[in-house]
């Protein structure tokens, strides 16, 4: 290990650097989002991701060390600490689901059938398109779990031979695209059924999709929260089976 690397570990090796950098880039994202009146590319999480990567890359270049090494030793200790809190945050989605138990109880069969059948069709189309673009099996395995929320999609991606980092990027981009195009897509594809709008937005856009669906009405809003929670469980059951069937999983 070089002297620079030892110095970096001494000064930046504690979790606080990663925590401070994460807070800083996210706050900057929130500020940009606010002053640009909600420009879709300035969503705080997207800005945070791009800026965080850029700053780490720049610092690694400035210190003359490998980018992956710098990420693992300087950012990851703090990043992992924050990441852990996604565990209780994911469990917390049981609460909005319970609050709309009335709709869950009336439409549970239609909701589950739609999510399972819709997901199977979507997975097959995603698989075909990925093949068409010449993406390898690791890439395909990383893209299949993207309908689930990031915290759940990442371990599934790892388990079926994908790259969890690519999966996380896919989930974040889903939200960016839905935020930008939801209204336009609903119009050109004539998605009029409120329950369908909600389930589609919650699946394709995760938490951001749910927020978008609430703007359309309380039924799409409630349905999106339900989809956002249930699709993760459906993905958990369907995606490994699907990957097995296509022989992507090693």
């Amino acid at each position, binding site marked *: 290990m070089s002297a620079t690397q030892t110095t970096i570990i001494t000064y930046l090796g504690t979790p606080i650097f990663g925590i401070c950098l994460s*807070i800083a880039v996210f706050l900057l994202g929130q500020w940009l989002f606010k002053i640009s009146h909600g420009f879709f590319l300035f969503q705080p*999480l997207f800005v*945070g991701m791009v800026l*965080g*990567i850029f700053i780490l890359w720049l610092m690694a270049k400035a210190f003359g060390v490998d*980018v992956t090494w710098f990420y693992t030793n300087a*950012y990851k200790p703090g*990043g*992992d600490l*924050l990441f852990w*809190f*996604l*565990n*209780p*945050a*994911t*469990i*917390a989605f*049981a*609460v909005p689901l*319970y609050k709309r138990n*009335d709709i869950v109880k009336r439409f549970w069969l*239609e909701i589950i059938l*739609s999510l399972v059948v*819709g997901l199977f069709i*979507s997975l097959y189309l*995603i698989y075909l*398109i990925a093949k068409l673009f*010449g993406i*390898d099996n690791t890439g395909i395995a*990383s*893209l299949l779990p*993207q*309908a689930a929320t990031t*915290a759940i999609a*990442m371990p*599934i991606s790892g*388990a*079926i031979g994908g*790259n969890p*980092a690519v999966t996380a990027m896919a989930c*974040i*981009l889903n939200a960016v*695209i*839905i935020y930008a*195009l939801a209204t336009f*897509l609903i119009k050109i*594809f004539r*998605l009029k*059924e409120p*329950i*369908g*709008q909600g389930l*589609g937005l919650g*699946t*394709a*856009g995760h938490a951001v999709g749910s927020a978008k669906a609430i703007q359309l009405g309380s039924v799409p809003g409630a349905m999106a929260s339900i*989809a956002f929670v249930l699709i993760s*469980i459906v993905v*958990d059951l369907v995606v490994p089976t699907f990957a097995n069937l296509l022989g992507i999983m090693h």
Partner: protein
Amino acid sequence: MADKSNDTQAEKKDAPILIQMGIFAAILFVSSLISPWLAAVLPKFPVPTPVIGLIILYLLLTLHIVKLEWVDKFATFMIGFIAFLFVPSGVQLTASLDIMKAQGLQLVTVIIISTVILLVVIAYTTSLFIWIKKNVFHGDVTVHE
């Protein structure tokens, strides 16, 4: 009727935040015990620990073992800043910059198309099942705002 019971629950006092955190911690601990056990029994189906926790909390709420006011405040707080918690997941792409150099453009293109596919296919599939419920089984499909 369901709304009424929710209203009365909302009027009840929230449990102290440390108790709410304790409930979450206990559920997470039990889930972390179940998760490796499930992995051994069903090796082909990865069930992440938080999914097990989500199901446990939902069941506890539905069976009225845990009351809404015991977990509501902490849950709302956690959901409120979930976007921030995803920053490290996005930033971890730093360690995979070579994949992005090799296949980044294709991956991003397929992700954009996938998002549209998920939205449209799920929405149409739902319309079909709602249509079947209404026209084949003559079920009530009206929903109230």
